[in-house]
């Protein structure tokens, strides 16, 4: 009896692993194809049957792409925007979250409802008035437009507030009695204690800004302002038959994000879980 149920459990486990491995392979397949194709010549990309191991492995695409595109400019612009936006979002987000989570004053809850309410409003429904407004300020076709667009999201306030609420109020009380100002409490107690949440928000904001396609598409027209997403899209249009080269560009656009994600994935997972559970 015991032997049989043991065998059943082992059997179920094997089935589970087979299912999961098949799913993982399916999910990763596009990335495998992307990398493999970037190491081939053009003619080798579409073959019947698919050649999953490039022969020979060709690194030439990774040399050529820098000359054939403005990849350096795009990467530089994107990195600049992502860093600036992330810095502002984390700073103002955690600052505002302290007000929402640890202080009581009239108007606080209404304001927070306004933040939450906009989560249900898609950006696509108001990007026209927003564009007219930002153009009216003469900021169309500048990095300012993207920075303004991304830096003051409700998401950062929301995430940091959820985290601050898990820190006991008694800690703030004690600090107040010891004579620390509210700003002092934020800087010396809340910020150091919320490093994991700050890490989550930093990574998520950075990745979102890096991957943003629509914002730059609408606002950044000059080639020297292009981000990697816009650049890659135009590159695809320009070399539409150079499949291997396009895949090389795609690999390069995903690579920095993949590295960041693999290094800090714990924070991604925790950050998303925080916003979800009490949502």
């Amino acid at each position, binding site marked *: 009896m015991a032997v049989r149920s043991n065998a059943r459990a082992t059997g179920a486990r094997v089935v589970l692993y087979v299912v999961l491995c098949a799913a993982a392979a399916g999910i990763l397949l596009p990335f495998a194809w992307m990398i493999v*194709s970037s190491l081939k010549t053009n003619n080798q990309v579409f073959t019947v049957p698919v050649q999953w191991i490039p022969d020979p492995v060709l690194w030439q695409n990774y040399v050529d792409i820098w000359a054939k595109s403005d990849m350096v400019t795009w990467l530089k612009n994107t990195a600049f925007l992502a860093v600036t936006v992330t810095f502002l979002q984390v700073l103002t987000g955690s600052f505002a979250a302290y007000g929402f989570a640890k202080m009581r004053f009239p108007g606080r809850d209404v304001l927070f409802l306004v933040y939450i309410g906009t989560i249900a409003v*898609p950006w696509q429904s108001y990007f026209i*008035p927003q564009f007219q407004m930002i153009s009216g300020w003469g900021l169309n076709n500048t990095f300012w437009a993207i920075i303004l667009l991304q830096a003051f999201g409700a998401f*950062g306030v929301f995430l940091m507030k959820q985290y601050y609420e898990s820190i006991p109020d008694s800690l703030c009380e004690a600090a107040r009695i010891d004579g620390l100002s509210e700003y002092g409490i934020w800087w010396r107690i809340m910020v150091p204690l919320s490093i994991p949440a700050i890490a989550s928000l930093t990574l998520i904001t950075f990745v979102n800004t890096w*991957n943003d396609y629509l914002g730059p598409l609408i606002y950044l027209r000059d080639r020297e302002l292009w981000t990697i997403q816009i650049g890659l899209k135009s590159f695809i249009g320009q070399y539409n038959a150079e499949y291997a080269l396009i895949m090389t560009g795609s*690999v390069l656009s995903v690579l920095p994000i993949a590295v960041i994600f693999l290094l800090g994935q714990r924070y991604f997972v925790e950050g998303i879980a925080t916003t979800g559970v009490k949502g």
Partner: protein
Amino acid sequence: MATTVVDHPGGPLGPPGSTPRGVPTGRAPGARLKLRNALIGWTFILPNFLGFAVITLVPVLTLFYISLTNSNIFGTATFIGLENYVKLGSDKSFHTALLNTFYYAGVHIPLTVVVSLSLALLLNRKMRGAAFFRTVAFFPYITSIVAIAVVWNMLFSPEFGPINQFLGLFTDGDLPGWTVDKDWAMPAVIIVGTWRDMGYYMLLFLAGLQTVPAELHEAARVDGASSWQRFLNVTLPCLRPTMFFVTVMITIASFKVFDLILVMTEGGPGQSTLVLSQYIYTKGFVQFQFGYASAVAVVLFFICILVTVVQFLYNKRKEA
């Protein structure tokens, strides 16, 4: 009253920690303390709120006015009442976009919920490699739309793409044309959308599953409930808050779907994958009919709000 202004520290972004004002040791009247507290509270919120209000709230509010004008590229805007909305009634492209949006949402929402919940249930146990599989499932979500769209377009290539080569092993019949066939373009886009999003919602479900008490499962098991019965009667009811949050998020994300479609098919072939967001974009940023585009945007706005409110009320009723 005037003294409170003096009391109030210089700027919200002044060097933190350098304003050790603390609680006044003197006998401050309660009202004064309260006001002071409120002012400090506001200084925390203002830097973010100002940006948020100007960049998000103001445009949301002006949207409605612009939709009642004939605003265009020349900067002139005359009030024309409901004319834009009347025009929507006979605009075939708008109807197509509306239908396609519901098509996408109608398939993408249930599909993503089922797939991401299944993944979460499979991974919600102590097992070797759980973290690895979780990472794999989440990975597509953090990669750029442009890169994945172009890769999937190649995979979907009707003649030489790996997907049709694979399908060809099982059938000699006609294979789907995917993104170049007007009947198959939408399914192709939905497949990619689900593939990309499921890992994110899986994480939300996994977080929710942590809150399901293990004793309940144990008790149900002792009472002889099958694993399906336990899922229906223990897991699902406990998961309801998460389910609510996830469906609201997926619903909004589905109705506003845009960048994936723009890069994969540009709404084509023909108008077979044209969705509301793209129609707003085309009318506004390609044809510069800001007023008319805003009227379409108002429709999208109300769809999203309405769906959210309905789901909210449904959740409330279930809770009661």
